């Protein structure tokens, strides 16, 4: 599947970007050979979903969620958020721009609905936490502290919400304060998800680590937009949005590599443009301990499982790397 041409080819090259593979049967049961450990939590393979591109009621129809390393759920806020008006998305070359604006039914609903259902299905769950202010984040983390979530991922990097959100992720002092506060509230393994829209990612990463987070995930989307050729107006109602997809792949790698050079031991989850086992592997080379698949899931529901299968195969012939992952060792 995913032939580059609409041709009558018996053998045809898979899409560089879409990377579908008719041979990997993502639905057959699979014995995972290469696990990873992120901040003490075992992932059965190094591949998870990226927040905002997974909804149980949609993705669960296509694959067994317990097959993935983790399921990282859509950002949850203290109360239901309605997000931005439509249109919320536009295409860009090998990518997309979105301004969903963190629409979600709120943490209380999450705790009685999506989270217990995911756990019942056997998923390892990373709960992505959204907020407009320090208090927002604190309220959500407080409610999650005794939940069955396996890890928390604090999103301080969404470019699509008007207050807080991105600014916390771009100011090392504000970030340190926020994280130190949340850290005191729970022992759950805590990840901070960083923004690429900064001058000095290493300074931000240091602030988060100094404040006590257990792991970093990067990158979130880059600010971008599109215009309608006819009207001359921005396509997305919010005007700007976040760019994701294969287009940002080399950029995400660059961020992970720079943070890994500066912080040799912090667990890192690499995100950005991953749609194949090979692209996931490049993130591991850059220094990631695991990855999350985002936009690729939107154009192929089973993409994260396929990426995990392909990576499992690639790791067979890379025993040193596989051993490091399995030991939760960073390098």
């Amino acid at each position, binding site marked *: *599947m995913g032939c580059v041409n609409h041709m009558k080819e018996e053998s045809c090259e898979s899409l560089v970007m879409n990377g579908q*593979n008719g*041979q990997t049967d993502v639905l057959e049961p699979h014995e995972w050979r290469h696990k990873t450990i992120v901040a003490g939590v075992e992932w059965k393979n190094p591949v998870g979903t990226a927040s905002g591109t997974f909804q149980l009621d949609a993705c669960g129809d296509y694959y067994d969620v317990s097959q993935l390393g983790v399921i990282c759920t859509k950002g949850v806020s203290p109360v239901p958020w309605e997000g931005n008006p*439509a249109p919320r998305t536009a295409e860009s070359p090998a990518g*997309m721009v979105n301004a969903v604006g963190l629409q979600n039914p709120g943490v209380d609903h999450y705790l009685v609905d999506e989270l217990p259902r995911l756990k019942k299905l056997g998923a390892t769950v990373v709960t992505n936490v959204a907020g407009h202010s320090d208090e927002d984040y604190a309220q959500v983390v407080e409610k999650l502290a005794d939940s069955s979530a396996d890890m928390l991922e604090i999103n301080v990097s969404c470019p699509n919400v008007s207050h807080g959100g991105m600014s916390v992720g771009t100011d090392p002092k504000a970030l340190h304060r926020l994280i130190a506060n949340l850290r005191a509230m729970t022992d759950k393994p805590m990840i901070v998800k960083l923004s690429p829209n900064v001058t000095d990612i290493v300074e931000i990463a240091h602030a988060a680590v100094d404040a006590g987070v257990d792991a970093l995930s990067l990158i979130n989307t880059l600010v971008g937009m599109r215009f309608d050729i006819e009207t001359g107006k921005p396509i997305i109602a919010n005007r700007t949005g976040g760019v994701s997809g294969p287009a940002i792949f080399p950029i995400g790698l660059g961020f992970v590599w720079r943070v890994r050079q500066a912080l040799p031991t912090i667990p890192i989850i690499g995100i950005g443009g991953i749609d194949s086992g*090979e692209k996931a592997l490049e993130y591991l080379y850059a220094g990631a301990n695991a990855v999350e698949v985002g936009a690729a899931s*939107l154009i*192929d529901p089973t993409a994260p499982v396929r990426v995990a299968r392909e990576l499992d195969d690639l790791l067979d012939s890379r025993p040193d790397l596989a051993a490091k992952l399995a030991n939760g060792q960073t390098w």
Partner: protein
Amino acid sequence: MSVFMSTVNTDIIEQRASKAGRKPGRRTGEVISVSLMSQGVYQLVIRDPYIARTARPAQFVNLYSANAAMMLPRPFGIAKVEGDDVTLIYQVVGAGTEEFSGLRAGDRIDVLGPLGKPFDLDTPANYVLVGGGLGVPPLLYAAQTLSGREDETQVTSVFGYRDDRFADETVKPYASKVYSIVNAEGNVIDLLNDIEQELTASDSRNVILSCGPTPMMKAVAGWASKRGIPAQFSLESRMGCGYGACVACVVDTPQGRLKVCKDGPVFTTEQLGWDA
């Protein structure tokens, strides 16, 4: 880098999915034919047994460009099903639809679907299909489906076109009454006003199914709710995934922002608050 070896893999993927109790994911279908229906409007027939077997009216399919730089799905309403073959009707508006118009029999194309919540066609009734422009394809499939009914169900089509009445011939075999109007003559509300007597005179209950530009559908909703006629609307919206994962495709309703791709594309007048 992975290589795909079989010519058409829809069958395999569907068999495995059904074995696993899942929906089949994105797969490569075979193009059976592409033909020009009207200026800039094409009819594309794709072979996909799963869609053919399971699709219901107003459900849609995602098509994907062969060009990896054009990533997002192109959603199209299902216009007809025959055997294993699914017909889509679309207008060339941008790079994706232009690419699809160059497809030929035997070419391959990636598909996902059927997607979305179909029209509710449970009640036997006179179904009045009110379509505008490229909103007609899902109504054609509704007509096809309803025409097979054994009960007192009737189909009346009320289509508004820019100029060429390109779908009238297609709907004729399935509809007992076929009305249409082109822009120069007026709009579908004019047409509905013309046939109002006829519709309300009949004993059977009327149900409006509508798809077209939003201003048209809002006018239809107003017209229908004034007359107490229940109506269902099939909406469009810019989509990120088309299957419910991204929450990009929302429509504002009194119940909040709902996903067009999964909560819809079909919504009732009341759900949309268009009766106000």
